[in-house]
């Protein structure tokens, strides 16, 4: 049996994207649908989207990552091809307790991507390596 929730989430996100492309607005109905499926995360994620906290980072080697500025000012590195975020909320609610599919950063990424509201940044390969290896900044 296939999982329902991811499919529903995908559909709604797809609808968001289509609606935004057409009218540059998300109808109320969709916002509430998002809220139903993802829960309280949506408000926080939308807040991040409003702040344009999601950045697509590319490097000349062709690697891509996403960086999300958390509300505390911390930068979280998320990935293109899998739903993972290094934030503690993700570790707790998604990984440990399986309470949800994603954390607010990932949802913010998905929404920003659907609405085309991501910032872009290009970094050198060196910097990309550091980001991917999560080098601790002194």
């Amino acid at each position, binding site marked *: 049996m296939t999982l329902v929730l991811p499919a529903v989430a995908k559909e709604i996100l797809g609808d968001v994207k289509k609606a935004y492309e057409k009218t540059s607005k998300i109808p109320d109905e969709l916002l509430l649908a998002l809220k139903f499926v993802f829960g309280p995360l949506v*408000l926080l994620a939308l807040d991040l989207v409003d702040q344009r906290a999601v950045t697509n980072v590319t490097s000349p080697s062709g690697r891509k990552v996403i960086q999300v500025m958390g509300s505390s000012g911390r930068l979280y590195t998320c990935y293109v091809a899998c739903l993972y975020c290094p934030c503690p909320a993700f570790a707790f609610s998604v990984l440990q307790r399986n309470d949800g599919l994603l954390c607010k950063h990932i949802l913010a990424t998905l929404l920003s991507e659907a609405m085309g509201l991501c910032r872009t940044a290009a970094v050198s390969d060196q910097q990309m390596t550091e980001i991917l290896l999560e080098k601790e900044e002194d």
Partner: protein
Amino acid sequence: MATHEGLSVKKLGTVRQLLPSKAKLKCQENQMESDFSWSSSESDSCDGEPSSALLKPQTDTMFTTRNKAIVNSYSKYLHMMSNLRRDCNYSDDEFHVIEWDNESDQGNEKFQNCDSMAEISDTDSVLESPVAQNEKHLPCDTAEVNTDAEISEYSSDGDATLISSPENNSEMTVIQRRNVNMSASDWIKSAQALLQTPKKQGEIVYKTPEDSAKKKKRFVRGGLAERLNRLQCRERSAISFWRHQYFSDRKDCSGQHGVLSLKVLKIYEECSMQIAFCQLLEKLSVDNSLLQEVEFKVLFTKATASLLKIRAGDHVHIHPPWKKIKIPGETCPVIINTYFSQKVLQEEKETAVPTQKLATEKKPPPPLLLAFNLMENKGYLFSTSEYQVPSSVTGSHLMLPVSQKIGPVCDSLLEAIESYAVTGSSTFDVKAVVQRVYILRQKQCPYQKLSKHSSISKAQASSQDHFTDRLCVLVQDVYGIFSEVQLPFSYFTKGSLLYYCSKWEGKLCILNDIKVLQRTTRARSAGLFILIDSLWPPLVPLKVHGNSPYPQDASMTSSQYLYKDNTILSAPCFCYILSTCRVDDAVKVLKDTVSDLYLPPVVHRLREILENDFGNRVCSFSAFVIYSRLQSHYLVQNESWLFVTDSYLQSSNENKQRIPRVVAVCVTTSCVIDAELTKALQNSAPCELLFKDAVIDNGVIMCVERTVLQKETLPSSEEIKSLELLSGPLSLDELGSTTVANSICTVKGTISGVDENSAYSWPVCDTCGNDKLEQAQKDPDFLFCLSCRRVVTKPTFKMHLEIFLNCSFDSQATVKMKLHQVTIEMLLGSTSSNEQRVMKWNKCLVKSWVHSVVSSTPLPGNHLFGLG
């Protein structure tokens, strides 16, 4: 001593409380001022309830000593509160996203609640510097508390830290620190902010304040979050109103318009949402146009489900506004927004219903590899339409549009490779332009021979050749990345190289079922990169990743392409070697028109090649082959030579010695020539060939592994001219002092002698030309031919003859020529006898191939030319 009602602290020191009720805190100043005792419990035990707190004002010293304990107990308290939160049965209406420091961001993130009444301010300052308290304010000035939620906090180093919760319209104050020398009255005042009696044990009901608009954390004005917040509030009010109405009145709502009457067949949990498989009971209440299906998957939030206690077999009514979502590929639509649901109680007594809570089956978590396919076109993010999840992984867990290749194929090679590596699928598809088609000769590796019948294959391997020819294509995607794709052997049976060239070269194709063999670099595959260099820089601007990932319309506008200055765009330094095992349609042509990205080989003239320095680059040219010295068997590791000329070289009137009339082209063993072409060349039929992507090495034109030799098919005006020239006698350079070895020239001279040491003749059969003749048994005078099994009465004689010539260009030079049969016959006349023949011709003009130039002295003179 009067005890302040409802106030107690569990721990002396920092206390954080979430306070539930709506009761107002009256400023009981009068009471405060009077004596009252505060009792403190120093236990660290978490009793799981925010019971009333009593604070006992202690002396300063005592507070100081307990300071450290506060910090420790604070963290424990947080932990306690988190447990508390988990255990509480939250109703749907309240949204409690209380991110405690321990459980959420460890950084400076402020606590965030959606709408809860618990206003928790930033506790970082508490954690980080519990002792050092710089800011000291009197909190009670703002403590006109009329709140539902509040956090009060005390630190007992004499400072009372108080955070008053916001009023309806007041802002939340930050942690405020007190002066060490705070008096008792101040303590009392600060206590005003504390709330009173919490609810009964075990139950904490969080309620939203009336107006949650103003928070410490503000949403962006006019932003989506603000909008959702407003919508949420409205929705919540509607829900609570509806519940009140329907639960209390127990109205029968079946038959009302828009109400879905469903029977729950099965229910399970997925990521804290409850998913119920339901069957429609009554269709009448809903418009048929809206609802055609009978079975649904209904999503309930955890709260709704537990409130209604939905179990399999229950009847539920779902009131509007619910929403139906159709999942592509699934038959059952999904119903969401099921806040307004009620369960229809069965009339009969449910005696059999077990009292204990039936736990619903919980689905395993979805894998992290899940990625949402958001885009129809190539998406920058989550472009999973081309992701193929292998069946072993799919199982029951993954929910991805797999295996059906709906939607466009990825047009970025790097992305396709990346996604294929990530998702672990066995192959991928990619769109690319075919730049070149050629055959690569490879040494056969043992693993290629693996088959069921290993014994047979071993035998085969030993007897067969050690080289295999593979059809390959060099492709380039729209981002400029090159890769070489090796196709399976079966392609040779279906068509020749020329056929595939004409079919694929220059066209935009889809490569199906591709696997990555390796990623090679310039250092490792010099030959490949010489070819790639010739295809760089591209003619058209390349696409660049990351540039405006969402085209507003389906057609890519030119602004999508970033054309970099050629100087900045450096040649590629890596190339992927791919392979496919797909026997049919591995390369599928998308558009029959030649792509803009295709860089056809630039056909030069031989003269240009000889005059200019092409360096270490490939060049293509068209020429007539007039003589070939091919190695017939490619096992022999010698190169072959083709002697070519073209009309320009032929017709050049200037007697430039530098540019020869005929050029020798070396064909290395790695260059594969079509069998048909080889035959034609061996028959010495002059043919015009197109040499594609030959390499100039030290002034010599070489046909290497990726060079393609193909017959020129299209007649051009120049070719017609050339043909005319060729039909007549070819003009060659004359043998001279500048002649180099391995060249073709004409020799003019007088025969001065015959090398008798090397001269011999032998009989051959006149019928079949076979030289295996035996003495006939019957008649010893005659010979018997072994191949045609008959007596040869009049055998022909073949001769090996080398002659010496005197040439006019250098009287000192000695020219030795080995003659072909034809020449010998011409010189001697046809004869059937074995006698020495007299040279009839003194002078002859022979076209010959210079075998070697041997210079006996450094001075010009006494050159010995060995000719063949």
